[in-house]
């Protein structure tokens, strides 16, 4: 069986110089899958990507010597992922222009300095078992990204690829981000679904429809899913979560309105395209209903490309956006209109001359980077941190205390908000009920929940750097015998054993996931 890696993720640590606050002051370094360094990458046959974020570490892998695997991603994910990587490279370039280049071994990586690090940071730097230190890498280069993208084969949703004639993989929309997907992998001895997320609630991103899901189910289990009651099905498709999400966005908007009314500006550091697009839609509604004219800026080296890209991809969007395509005034997002009539501006960098010309406060700014260590956000945060009327919106999951440390004291309001970013366990169990797989792998962190819920599922739990062996679910492969060949079959009876057998002589072909015997 082919070795499959799904997703190369990037975990990043942000470092700032020790200023009595225990931070390292240096260009950020990155760490990807720890094992990447010890793997023989030539043993990897296929890499499947599930989302734009899930490919940010890909150049680290593809630039390794001996890497020959096929990389598959959806067209939208690979385009957005590429832009995100290019933006990251750009921000690093800017960082170096600002603070000067760094030597091969930065001072903070010297042993005597490392000794002095506070305990928390040491843990991050060395990893839980103390083996991660060697994994910290400087970011890849623009050339690495370019070479990496040449190796990515991009697909439409539900477009099948056939590896080696016998393994078929197909990306199905997962509903999390534009272009994000779950993978269905069919082999002769069992079928696998890799579910990174299953969300039925996103209005902007395309969502797996019922047919796709039952497709998944059939292949995952080969058992009929017809007995799943419709209640379970509709629970999975409930709109509660969607409304909850809209509530959250509206809450951000109304907090923003309050700040703006008091003369403050809004700063939203995020790289998640889906969030930016949804917030733009909501902001437009709120500003219009309050009859306010406040400029919105998206500042990023790839802002223009991202927005242009999103205005031409109806195939990748949810029902709500598609309906707009079929309307009298076709446009996928409100931002097309907003750009035209000067309510929204896109700028590649904060020091653009054009930006300075039209800059006006209060305003709303979207810009990278969520770590608050790179990109336009660092400048804007310094500008507004003392203003108690301004508002900073950061995502849950980042340690607010840590990321804000270099900017303290801070008078600015901080709103930490969780955006929907995956499936809840309850929902995934519901999904399992529909799919009825023979075996499920859950992440280790789910172990206790799954145990306490007493789910009747054959399951095991995976964690980083561990290989699991899963038995074949099918007893044997199937062979299609062509009628022309089948006609030649003449059975001989073995009375004693009560078996009829025939000699079969032909040519075996492997095509599109199927063994075929032909004359």
């Amino acid at each position, binding site marked *: 069986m082919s070795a499959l890696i799904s997703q190369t993720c990037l975990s990043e640590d942000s470092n700032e110089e020790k200023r009595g606050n225990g931070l390292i002051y240096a260009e950020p370094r990155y760490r990807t899958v720890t094992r990447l360094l010890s793997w023989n990458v030539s043993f990897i046959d296929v890499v499947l990507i599930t989302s734009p974020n899930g490919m940010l570490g890909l150049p680290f892998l593809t630039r390794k010597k001996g890497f020959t695997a096929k990389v598959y991603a959806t067209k939208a994910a690979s385009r957005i992922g590429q832009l995100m990587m290019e933006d990251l490279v750009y921000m690093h370039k800017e960082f170096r222009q600002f603070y000067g280049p760094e030597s091969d071994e930065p001072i903070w990586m010297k042993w005597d300095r490392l000794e002095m690090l506070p305990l928390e940071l040491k843990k991050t730097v060395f990893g839980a078992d103390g083996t991660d230190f060697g994994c910290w890498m400087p970011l890849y280069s623009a050339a690495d990204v370019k070479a990496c993208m040449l190796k990515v084969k991009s697909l439409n949703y539900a477009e099948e690829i056939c590896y080696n004639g016998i393994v078929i993989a197909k990306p199905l929309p997962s509903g999390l981000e534009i272009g994000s997907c779950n993978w269905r992998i069919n082999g002769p001895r069992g079928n696998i679904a890799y579910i990174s997320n299953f969300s039925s609630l996103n209005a902007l991103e395309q969502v797996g429809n019922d047919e796709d899901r039952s497709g998944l189910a059939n292949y995952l289990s080969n058992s009929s899913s017809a007995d799943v009651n419709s209640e379970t099905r509709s629970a999975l498709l409930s709109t509660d979560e969607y409304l909850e999400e809209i509530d959250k966005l509206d809450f951000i908007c109304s907090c923003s309105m309050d700040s703006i009314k008091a003369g403050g500006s809004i700063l939203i550091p995020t790289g998640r395209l889906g969030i930016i697009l949804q917030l733009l839609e909501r902001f437009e509604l709120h500003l219009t209903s309050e009859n306010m004219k406040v400029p919105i800026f998206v500042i990023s080296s790839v802002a223009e490309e991202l927005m242009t890209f999103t205005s031409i991809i109806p195939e990748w969007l949810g029902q709500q956006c598609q309906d707009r395509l079929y309307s009298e005034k076709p446009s996928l997002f409100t931002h097309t209109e907003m750009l035209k009539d000067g309510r929204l501006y896109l700028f590649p960098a904060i020091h653009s001359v054009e930006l300075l010309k039209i800059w006006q406060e209060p305003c709303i700014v979207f810009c990278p980077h969520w770590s608050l260590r790179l990109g336009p956000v660092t400048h804007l945060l310094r500008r507004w941190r003392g203003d108690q009327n301004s508002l900073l919106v950061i995502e849950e999951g980042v340690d607010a205390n840590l990321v804000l440390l270099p900017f303290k004291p801070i008078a600015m309001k901080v709103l930490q908000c969780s955006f929907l970013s995956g499936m809840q366990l309850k929902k995934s169990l519901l999904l399992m009920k529909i799919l009825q797989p023979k075996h499920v792998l859950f992440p280790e962190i789910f172990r206790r929940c799954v145990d306490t819920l007493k789910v009747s599922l054959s399951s095991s739990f995976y964690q980083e750097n561990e290989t699991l062996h899963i038995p074949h679910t099918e007893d044997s492969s199937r062979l299609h015998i062509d*009628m022309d060949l089948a006609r030649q079959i003449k059975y001989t009876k073995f009375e004693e054993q009560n078996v009829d057998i025939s000699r079969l002589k032909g040519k075996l072909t492997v095509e599109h996931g199927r063994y075929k015997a032909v004359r």
Partner: protein
Amino acid sequence: MAIECLVLGAGQEVGKSCVVVTINGKRIMFDCGMHMRYTDLRQYPDFSLISDSGDFTSSLSCVIITHFHLDHIGALPYFTQVLGYDGPIYMTYPTKALAPLALEDYRKQTERRGEKEQFTAEHIADCMKKVTAVDLKQTIHVDKDLQIQAYYAGHVLGAAMFYAKVGDAALVYTGDYNMVPDRLLGAAQIDRLQLDLVISESTYATTYRDSKYVQEREFLKAVHKCVASGGKVLIPTNALGRAQELCMLLDDYWERTNLKVPIYFSSGSTIQANLYHRILINWTSQKVKDTHARHNAFDFKNVKSFDRSLINAPGPCVLFASPGMLGGGFSLEVLKQWAPYEENLVMLPGSCSTGTVGSKLMSAKIPTQIKLDENVKIDVRCQIYKLAFSAHTDAKGIMDLVKFLSPKHVLLVHGEKPKMAALKEKIQSELGIECCYPANNETVTIPSTHHIEAGVSDAFLQSCLAPNFKFWKTNVGSDERTPPLLQVYDDRVSQGILTLQNPRVISQNELRDVLGLENHLVKFDHCCSAAYDSEISNAASDWLPSTSQRNSLLQLLFGIVSRDFPDCIMHDCQKGIQVGSFVASMCSREECPSGNADALHFRCTWSATDEELAWKVISLVKNVKLSSASLDSFRVLMDF
């Protein structure tokens, strides 16, 4: 099993495309078009042939529409809203976006002519709501057994060929397609598929055409010449497709040559169609896609909207006005004003229905007079230019596609009868593929692929998939001095045993398990050849090895295997070597139980528990390289 094709339209003609295909119990309607020549019910396919009861929803699995041209979609609102078909309908995203425009344009024209309308604006809107939009190459499971897939057809924006598969039977319905790329669109693109049938259009069944780039240049030259001498250019087109294509050419040309002459669009729906094209730019040609980030090709820089007062304004201009065949409406109105002046130019579309002003102009000798009705005549002194553009493939393209797909049968539609007959001959004689071109309302039945299914053992698959190289030498020519040519071929003919009860294919070696001959201990048995080098294999064909040769060969094997498996032992009587339950002994062509044809080879047996070990050792065994050097060592041993 068979595939049944009921041709409801476009049989030996162009118009109202509609083919109903029954394939392994599933029934698919490809296209649901309208005939533009008629205004009564004859413009629709005879739907009653599908179902007597009129219950179309249960008699069809789905309807597939290939593109937005009315001869392919014109009857759809009538079929769904008046005749009540309520099942699934598939088309690409652009077709779903653009079809309502095309349908609405047509409806307004009939309304203007005061004819009885067959469907309303509401019908169109409600019909489109039932449509499922699909992307290219996306695999769509209509139901448990029927799978469809769209491929790029390059005919108009969003045009697609459709692949449909039920079980092993599969076909492709091409719709209209183009095999060469142009400015606006790429060429048709499809995978190599296993097909029983291809249903292809054949508009240009006997025509061979130049590249479209030449025609595009000619067109631009003609327009430029006219406006440069102060003339007005009238381009009668319908709102969709052709208008965008020509305008893109002009806008680009205007930019390059810095022309300032205004280009006008008269119709609101054309301007709306431009907006759709802008969003759907991913469906255009590679070049347009590549440059869209800098400039979206449908964001026309030199185009303005027209108003009536400009008809007689002085100075040159270019005007796009509908309808395309000058059958009435605004384009005819403008023609009346502009036709009498020599400096003006009228661009006529490739073909015009008989009876329209367009067709009269087509055959006219300038100057002339054209009679509109009893009282109105137009003096025509302007220049006439016939657009030779076509978005259809020519005969070479059809042949190329059929050859590429190599189906078992071809069915031609959407063409003229005599030309189709000529193409059929060509397909049958040159490609050796059965071909037919039924008339409307005829049914054709075509046999389809079928198979039986059985389980299959890993050992059988392994034996088939592992390369089985054979070598032999051939002497080239009679000259003794030229060295013989070594030929290698992969002789992978699969031989196995099929059991009737619980159908399963196994390898010969597994047979004894099935027959229960060695019930107490499941033993595996595999004969494998060593890798001979050329010289020895040549010798091997009629070589009868002696006992001592056998022994030395076994010793050679022992040396190799014991390097990796230190617990390997050599049997006393030199019968074989053993690791665990794995035993390898010498076997020859004469005594081989599994019919291995090599003069001398190894026979390996092992019990089920040592499966993994066995295959590891076998891989070593296979690598025992018998070269003439080792043969020499035999001799040495023998002499000794």
